[in-house]
């Protein structure tokens, strides 16, 4: 009853000074709106990254050289690359849980053919690679075991490479020179678009790893081994299996740490999301400065309001309002002001996020919890910045307040 009455009084006072209330709320509106937008963009980036990591393939497990950083000091982490094609072949041979294993030999190469020159990344992979990455050809075919065994000079090119080297023509069947070695193009990969980090995934040439190893890389060490388990639930067990095979192959004593790292998509996702979380936090922190400024605006107006209504406060006290009653009245007014501002701010945030989404093509997302959080935060701003003026009102001497002109 009492609370309802105070809220009525607060709304009444806000409505009596529409222009002033609106300007006061503007600070909160901009503040909350900005924070909401920044978080929405951050969330959008996060889901974008999640999507592109999922796009890497299903149930992906990646083995890279170098010891894991987890669990104490790592010896020679990443300093010495001991990952070989033979490791990949051994995993493929011995593993029970993996549905596909492929080494990945990276060779940055100048590709010459068709319309000219294109600097790109040649990936020497096995036939499992397309399955692991969930990637198929849009034209032609992928290379097969025969191509692999025969170290054939065949290549499957990404959509970007196809577009740049062979505009308006069918690349399949054409020749391509990689480091002066002629390769025959047998297929064009489906377009995968950009990663969350903005890398063009289609700027790639796939070739049998046997060919790449002998013709382009010239050494047996490889950048990574990718694998996938048949069942997502098997991922942890599959990782253990890989670790066992690798340790055995590398003849590691039980006290020696791994000289390789096994990660799955969850790890990769966590790492990537960690980065966006930090970015989001940073952006939100900057945006919340405007919320602070908005709060100061509320304090300013509340101080004016208390001065203006000194006589009213005196009357209320004379007829029996306690200091705490007056305090509540003004505190509620400031909270109502900031919460209404917060509600408008949420609307602005939604609108702004939508605009950003349209302009950038990112998917922005505002979680429902975010709305609650924003409202709670505005209320907190109202309490924090409304307390001082409200206390000032509550501590007025009723006699002086009644005499105030």
């Amino acid at each position, binding site marked *: 009853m009492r609370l309802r009455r105070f809220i009525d009084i607060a709304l*009444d006072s806000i409505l*009596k000074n529409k222009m002033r209330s609106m300007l006061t709320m503007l600070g909160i509106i901009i503040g909350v709106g900005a924070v909401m937008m920044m978080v929405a963009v951050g969330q959008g980036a996060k889901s974008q990254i999640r999507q592109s990591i999922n796009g890497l393939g299903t149930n992906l497990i990646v083995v890279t050289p170098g010891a894991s950083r987890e669990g104490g000091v790592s010896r020679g982490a990443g300093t010495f690359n001991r990952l070989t094609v033979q490791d990949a072949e051994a995993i493929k041979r011995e593993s029970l849980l993996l549905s596909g294993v492929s080494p990945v030999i990276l060779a940055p190469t100048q590709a010459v053919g068709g319309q000219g020159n294109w600097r790109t990344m040649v990936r020497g992979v096995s036939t499992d690679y397309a399955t692991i990455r969930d990637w198929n050809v849009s034209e032609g075919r992928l290379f097969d075991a025969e191509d692999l065994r025969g170290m054939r000079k065949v290549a499957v090119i990404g959509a970007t490479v196809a577009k740049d080297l062979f505009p308006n023509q069918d690349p399949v069947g054409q020749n391509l020179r990689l480091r002066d070695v002629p390769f025959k193009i047998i297929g064009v990969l489906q377009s995968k678009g950009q990663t969350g980090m903005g890398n063009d995934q289609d700027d790639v040439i796939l070739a049998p790893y046997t060919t790449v190893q002998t013709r382009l890389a010239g050494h047996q060490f490889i950048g990574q081994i990718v694998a996938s388990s048949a069942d997502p639930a098997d991922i942890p067990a599959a990782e253990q299996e890989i670790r066992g095979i690798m340790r055995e192959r590398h003849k590691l004593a039980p006290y020696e740490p791994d000289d390789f790292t096994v990660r799955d998509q969850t790890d990769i996702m966590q790492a990537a999301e960690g980065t966006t979380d930090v970015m989001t936090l940073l952006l939100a922190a900057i945006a919340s400065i405007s919320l602070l400024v908005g709060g100061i605006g509320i304090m300013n107006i509340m101080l004016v309001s208390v001065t203006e209504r000194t006589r*009213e406060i005196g009357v209320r006290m004379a*007829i029996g309002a306690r200091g705490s*009653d007056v305090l509540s009245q003004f505190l509620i007014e400031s909270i109502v002001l900031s919460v209404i501002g917060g509600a408008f701010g949420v609307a602005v945030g939604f609108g702004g996020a939508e605009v950003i989404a349209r302009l950038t093509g990112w998917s922005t997302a505002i979680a429902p919890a975010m709305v609650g959080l924003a409202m709670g935060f505005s209320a907190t701003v109202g309490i924090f910045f409304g307390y001082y003026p409200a206390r000032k009102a509550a501590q007025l001497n*009723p*006699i002086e307040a009644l005499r105030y002109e």
Partner: protein
Amino acid sequence: MSEPDLVIDAKELTKVYGTGGSEVHALRGIDLEVRRGEMMAIMGASGSGKSTLMNILGCLDQPTDGVYVLNGARVDGLDRDQLADIRNREIGFVFQGFNLLARTTALDNVELPLLYDRSGRKLDSKALARDALERVGLGDRMDHQPSELSGGQQQRVAIARALVTNPTLILADEPTGNLDTHTSVEVLALFQELNAQGVTVLLVTHEPDIAAYAPRIMELRDGLVVRDHATVARQDAVLDPGGGEPVEPVESLKATS
């Protein structure tokens, strides 16, 4: 400790403002007894200490020294919150400047003190406010805002606000100060009427012609009581809430107001 029919029993009330060399003795020892159902006027020029006395009697201020028993309970030495509760329960204020909340209906204005009631009793505050407004003859003006009411009507709303809690006494501080003669007489008539119904009324004024409507007048000068006497109160004020025939103002009132 005090006789039950005493509403106010104050002894040796003093009030000193300031400290050291700049002390001002606003009250120098005032004794005052007011019986239940009494109507009295406290009169004095400005600087006589009547405002200070009113503030203390109204529990807005505390005496520097002395004992103040209100409705059988000592109130000197209470803290701010306790005083607020006592003001809410025991005292109805009527001010010179009406002091109604602007842009708030008469009914809501009158209801206001009940919203600060902390006794915990169940009150139908709207019904009580309506009753109070009817008692002062404004039953047909409940939804009017102060700006839509005349000065006299506003003061009657203020009196209704003072009445609504059924207080021990009504303290009226220059209640006719902002009103013309005709309306002043009406308001005084209303006080007399309420007093006849048993309400204890304390009129604080500097005008002898206003004080003359009370059967007992206490005069203050320089913080001391110079005279406290019973008189025959003027009975020429006519309560005319209908606002029909204007009341003929008395000659002497014309001159002073």
